[in-house]
C-alpha cells in the first residue's frame, strides 16, 4: 500500500480533481477572455502530464496489485459515506473513497493524461462559447480519470456517470449538423448499459459480506475475494446462474462503451458529429473504459463466468474485427471510416482478453494504449483536413501527398501503425493478441478467422490513402496549407510514442506485465 503525496494530498486525488480546479477557474473567468481560458485549460493538462510523469518515476512495476491490497500503489482510502440504517434489511452502508493504481490502470492513467493534453491543444480551433467548452472538457477528464483509479464500485459508478454528462453537452452543443441525434443516442445507449451495471452493483453489495468487518461492501478488492460471498448469498456458489447472469449484465454495460457488436452504432454517429478534440478523447480514452471495466471488475469478480463466456466473447470479438473492417471499407466519409476502424481495433482488444492467456491479455492492454494513441492521431488528421476543406468525403480529395507533404507523412505513420506495421507499436500488441488467442485451444479457430482482419485492414487503409493522398490534386484544393505548428504539437508526441513503443515495447510492457500475470493466474485458478 504505497502512498505518494503532493502537498499532503495523494497524487491520484490530484490527478482526478485538478481538472475540477481548472474548471472552477475557467468558470470564474469572464466569457470574453477566450485566450486565457484556452491556455489555462491546456496548462492544467500539462500539469496533469507532469504529475503523471512524477508518478511514473515513483511507480514500482514489480508490484502486481489486481486483487492484493499490498500490491496497489498510490493508494488513498478514506471513508466517504457511512450510514447506519436501523432497518435490518440494509444494515450499515459503508462506502469508501478508495483510489489506487496498478498495472491494469496505471497505463490508462498515463493515456488519459496524454490524450487529455492532446485534446486540449486540438480544441484550440473551437470558436463557440469557449468557456463552457473548456469547463465541460475539464470535467470530462475528471470523470475518466476517476473511473480509471476508483477501486470502490460505488465510486467507480459515480465517475462513470459523471463522464456522461459533459460528453453529452460536448457533442450536443459543439458538434456537427446532426449533433443532437448523436448526443442523445450516445447518452441513451450508455445509460442503458449503466442500468445493468447498477443492478449488478447493488446485487453484489447485498450478497457480499466483508470477511473482516462482516459488512456489505463496494470495495472491489474485497469483492474479488471469493470468501466475501457467503455460500447462501446470490453469488456464493462459483459458476451458479446468478454469477453468470451478473457477468452478462456487466458485460453489456461495458460492451456498450467498447463498443461491441451489436451495441456499436452510437460510435460512428458520435464520432462523426463530435468536434475533433472530442473524437480524439472518445476514441483515445473513453472506449478503453469499457475494456478496462472488464478486466478491473468483471473478470476478477466473476472469474468462473469469464472462463464460461470465453468463447462467446471471442466470437463477438471476431465479429467486431471483421464486421468493423468491412463496414469501414464501405464508408465514404473519412471520419466514419476511422470510427469503424476503431470498432475493428477494439475487437482485437476483446479477443486478447477473451483468450485469458498472459500474452493475449498483455497484448490487449497494450492494444488499448496503442489504439488510443494511433486513433487519436488519425482523428486529429481528419480534423486538420476538415478544418481546411470543410468536407470529409473521401472522394472529394486526391493528390494531397504533394500538396501537404508533412501532413501526408504524419498520416501515413498513423495509418501504417493502424494496420500493424512492424516497428510501430500496434504490431506488437496485435501479434500478442493473436499469439494469445492461438495459444488458447478453445478459441483458436476464432483467432485464425479474426486474423483475416489484418488483410481487410490493409485493404481499406491503403484504399483510403489512394483516394485521399495519391493521384492528381483537384484544382479546388490549390489553396490548402500544410499542417500547422499547433497541429504538429498535438500529433507529433503521439507519433514519437507510437514509434518508440514499436521499437522498444519494454517501456510499456514492464508497467503491466506483473499485474497481468497476476490477473491471469487469479482468473485461471
Amino acid at each position, binding site marked *: 500500500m504505497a502512498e505518494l503525496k503532493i502537498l499532503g494530498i495523494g497524487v491520484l486525488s490530484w490527478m482526478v480533481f485538478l481538472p475540477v480546479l481548472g474548471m472552477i477557474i475557467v468558470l470564474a473567468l469572464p466569457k470574453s477572455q477566450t485566450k486565457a481560458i484556452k491556455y489555462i485549460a491546456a496548462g492544467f493538462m500539462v500539469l496533469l502530464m507532469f504529475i503523471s510523469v512524477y508518478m511514473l518515476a515513483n511507480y514500482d512495476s514489480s508490484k502486481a496489485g489486481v486483487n492484493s491490497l499490498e500490491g496497489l500503489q498510490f493508494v488513498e482510502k478514506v471513508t466517504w459515506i457511512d450510514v447506519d440504517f436501523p432497518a435490518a434489511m440494509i444494515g450499515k452502508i459503508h462506502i469508501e473513497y478508495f483510489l489506487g493504481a496498478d498495472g491494469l490502470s496505471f497505463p490508462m492513467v498515463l493515456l488519459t493524461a496524454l490524450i487529455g493534453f492532446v485534446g486540449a491543444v486540438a480544441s484550440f480551433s473551437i470558436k463557440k462559447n469557449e468557456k463552457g467548452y473548456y469547463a465541460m472538457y475539464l470535467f470530462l477528464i475528471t470523470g475518466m480519470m476517476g473511473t480509471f483509479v476508483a477501486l470502490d464500485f460505488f465510486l467507480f459508478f459515480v465517475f462513470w456517470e459523471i463522464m456522461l454528462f459533459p460528453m453529452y453537452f460536448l457533442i450536443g452543443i459543439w458538434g456537427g449538423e446532426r449533433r443532437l441525434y448523436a448526443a442523445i443516442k450516445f447518452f441513451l445507449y450508455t445509460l442503458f448499459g449503466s442500468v445493468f451495471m447498477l443492478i449488478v452493483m447493488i446485487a453484489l453489495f447485498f450478497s457480499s459480506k466483508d470477511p473482516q468487518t462482516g459488512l456489505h461492501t463496494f470495495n472491489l478488492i474485497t469483492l474479488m475475494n471469493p470468501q466475501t460471498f457467503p455460500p447462501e448469498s446470490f453469488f456464493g456458489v462459483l459458476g451458479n446462474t446468478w454469477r453468470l447472469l451478473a457477468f452478462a449484465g456487466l458485460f453489456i454495460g461495458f460492451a456498450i462503451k467498447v463498443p461491441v457488436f451489436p451495441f456499436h452504432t452510437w460510435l460512428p454517429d458520435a464520432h462523426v458529429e463530435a468536434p475533433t478534440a472530442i473524437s480524439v478523447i472518445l476514441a483515445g480514452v473513453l472506449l478503453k473504459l469499457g475494456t478496462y471495466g472488464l478486466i478491473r471488475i468483471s473478470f476478477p469478480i466473476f472469474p468462473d463466468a469469464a472462463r464460461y463466456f470465453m468463447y462467446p466473447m471471442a466470437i463477438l470479438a471476431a465479429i467486431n474485427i471483421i464486421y468493423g473492417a*468491412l463496414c469501414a471499407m464501405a464508408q465514404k466519409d473519412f471520419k466514419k471510416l476511422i470510427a469503424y476502424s476503431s470498432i475493428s481495433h477494439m475487437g482485437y482488444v476483446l479477443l486478447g482478453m477473451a483468450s485469458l492467456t498472459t500474452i493475449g491479455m498483455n497484448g490487449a492492454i497494450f492494444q488499448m494504449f496503442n489504439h488510443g494513441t494511433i486513433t487519436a492521431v488519425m482523428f486529429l488528421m481528419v480534423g486538420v483536413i476538415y478544418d481546411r476543406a470543410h468536407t470529409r468525403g473521401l472522394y472529394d480529395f486526391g493528390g494531397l501527398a504533394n500538396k501537404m507533404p508533412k501532413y501526408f507523412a504524419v498520416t501515413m505513420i498513423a495509418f501504417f501503425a493502424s494496420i500493424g506495421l*512492424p516497428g510501430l507499436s500496434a504490431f506488437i500488441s496485435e501479434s500478442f493478441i493473436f*499469439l494469445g488467442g492461438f495459444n488458447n485451444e478453445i478459441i483458436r479457430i476464432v483467432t485464425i478467422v479474426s486474423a483475416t482482419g489484418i488483410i481487410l485492414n490493409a485493404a481499406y487503409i491503403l484504399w483510403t490513402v489512394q483516394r485521399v493522398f495519391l493521384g492528381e490534386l483537384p484544382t479546388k484544393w490549390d489553396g490548402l496549407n500544410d499542417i500547422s505548428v499547433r497541429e504538429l504539437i498535438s500529433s507529433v508526441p503521439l507519433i514519437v510514442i507510437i514509434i518508440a513503443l514499436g521499437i522498444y515495447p519494454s517501456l510499456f510492457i514492464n508497467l503491466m506485465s506483473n499485474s497481468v500475470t497476476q490477473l491471469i493466474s487469479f482468473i485461471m485458478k
Partner: protein
Amino acid sequence: MEFALKFLPLAILIIPLVSFLIIIFFGKRLPRQGDWLGTGFLFLNLFLSLYVFIAFMSLGNYSITYDWFSLGANETKFTVGFVVDQLSAVMLIVVNLISALVHLFSVKYMEGDSKYSKYFAYLGLFTFSMLGIVITNNLLLMYVFWELVGLSSYLLIGFWYEKKPPQEAAKKAFIVNRIGDFGFLIGIMIVFYFIGNFAFSEIFSGISSGKIPSGWLTAAGILLFCGAIGKSAQFPLHTWLPDAMEGPTPVSALIHAATMVAAGVYLTARIFIMLSADALTFVAFIGAITAFIAATIALTQNDIKKILAYSTVSQLGYMIMAIGVGAYSYGVFHLVTHAFFKACMFLGAGSVIYGMHHIQNISEMGGLRKKMPITFVTFLISTLAISGIPFTSGFLSKDSILASTMAFGSINGGITIIIPIIAFLVAGMTAFYMFRLVIKTFLGEPRNKEKYDHCHESPLQMTLPLMILSGLSIFFFYSFNPFGAEGGWFINVLKSPESLLVGTKGAIYHIVSREEFHEALHHAHYPAMILSLVLAGLGILISFVFYFWNKVDTEKLKKALNPLYKFSLNKWYFDELYHYTAVSFVMGLSALASLFDKYVIDGIVNGAAYLTVKLSDFGGLFDKYVVDGLVNFTGGTVWVFGMILRKFQTGRVQTYIGFLVFSIVLLYFIFRWI
C-alpha cells in the same frame, strides 16, 4: 578483432537505416539531395559484407542474440538476434552489391525527378529491411522485416503516385502480400504454440526432439511457406509482381527481380530442414506450377518489363521447386546467379527505356544493337545465362536444378515425374521468350525510326553496373568447371543442411538423406545436361526462325492458335478471376455489412427509440386524460371551494375585524353550549 567482427552484421544492417533517416529528414538540404550519401553508404556496406563473408569462411557460423523484451518475470522472452551462416553471408553480399549498383544506376536514371531525394531514402529503407530478413535469427523478427520490405516495396512501386496505375499496383502488391503474410503469421503462431520461442535454433532443436506433432508440422511448414508464396509471387498470388513494374525500373531490378522477391526463396531455404515431406511436396508443386504458368504468359507479352517480370516469376518458381525437391544448395545458388543476371537485364531494360525516352513496347524497338552496344552485350550475356547456355552462371545453377528434378523424379516415381517434365519444358520456353525479347529489341531493323534516331547509349553511371553484373554471370566466379557446379567452391560454401525429418514419408514423396540424393543426382547429371542444352538450343532456334529470319508468319500462327494465344496474352485471366471472385466478394460483403449496420442495427436502435417515443406519447395521453383528469378533478373541487372562500378574503382590515368579533361571539356561544 573477433569482437568487432561480431558487431559487423549489426553495422551492416544499421548503415542503410541511417542513410534512410538522414535523407528523409535532410535530403532536400543536402548537396545533390543526398544521392552520394546513400550510394556511398551502400558501397561501404558492400565492402563490410565482403569482409564478413571472408571472415565467415574461416570462422564458421556464429550468431548473436539480445533480449528485446519479456513478459512477466518467468514468462516468454522475446529476443532479437543475428546469425551469420552460409545462407546469410552469401545473401549479404548479393543484396548489398545489387543495391549499391542500383543506387549508382539510379543517380542518372532518376535525375531530375521531383522526389529524387525521397527515392534514395526509400532505397535505403528497403535495403535495411532486406538485410534484416537476411541476417535475423528468429521467425518473429523475420516477419517484422518481411512487412517492412513490403512497406518499402509499396512506397517504391507507387513512387509515381500521381498516375493511376502505380497507385493500383502498389496497393495490390501490399494487399496480396498481406494474404500471404496471413498464412505466415498463423504458421508462426503454430510454431510458437509448440515451441514457445521464435529463434530458429530453438525451433529446429524443438522439432528434432519431436515437440511438434507431424500433422501440425506439415501445417506449420505450408503456412510459413504461404509467406513465401506472397513475397516470391508464387501461384496463386503471383499477380502482383507484373503489375509492380509500374515502379521505376531500377527499383524493379533491385526489389522485384533480385532481392525482395527472392526473400520468399530465402525463407523457404531457412525453414527447409523443418519442412515435412508433404510440405515439401506442396512447395515443389507450387514452384513447378508457377514456373510453368509464368513462362507461358511471358511467351506473348510485348512490354519489355512485363516479359522480364514473368520470367522472374518463372525463375522464382524454379528456385522454390528446387528447394521443394530437396536441392537446397541449387535453389539458393540459382537465387544468387539469377539475382545478378536478372538485375542486369532489368537495368539493361532501364537503359533501353532511358535511351528510347520511355518506350517500353518491344514491337516499337529493334536494331538497338548499333546504338547501344554496351547495353546489348551485357543484356545478351545475361540472356545466355538465363537460357542456360554453357560458360554462364545460369547454366551451372539451372542445369543442377534440372538434374535435381530428374533425381527427384527417379527416387519417388509416380506423379512426381511431372516436376522434371515441367522443369524441362520451362527451360525451353525460357530460352525462346528471352531470345524473342533480345531479337525484337536489339537485332533486325528499327521499327520506330524517329525514336531510334534519338536513341543513344547510356552514360557510364548506368553502363558500369551493367558490366559488373554481366561479368558476374560468367561461370568462373562460381566454379572453375564450366560444365558442373558440383565441386565448385560456391556450392561447397552453400552446403545443404540435413533435413530434420530424413526418412519420413509423405503421401507421394519421402525425404531422403543428402547422400542418397547425391547418388541419384549423379546419375541424372549428364542426361539432364544434354536434354537441357537441346531444349534451350531448340528454343533459341525457334525464336530466331520466328523473329529474326521471319520464316514463319507469326500473325498467322497467332490466328491459328487464337484461344491459346489470347489465354497467354491475358495472363490466364487471373486478374479477372480474382476481380470477379475475391475482390467483388469482399466489396459486396463490405457494402452489405454497411447496409446492415445502417438499416438493420441502427434500424432496430432507431425503431426502439421510435417505439419509446410512441409509447411515451400514449403515456402522455393517459396522463393527460386519466391521471391528469383525476388531478384536475381534485384541483377543481378545491378551486370551487377556494372561489367561495376567497370572498372572505377582502383585504380589508375592517372586514377581518368584523369576522373576528363575529367569531368570538360564536365561540362564546359554542363554549357555553358545551
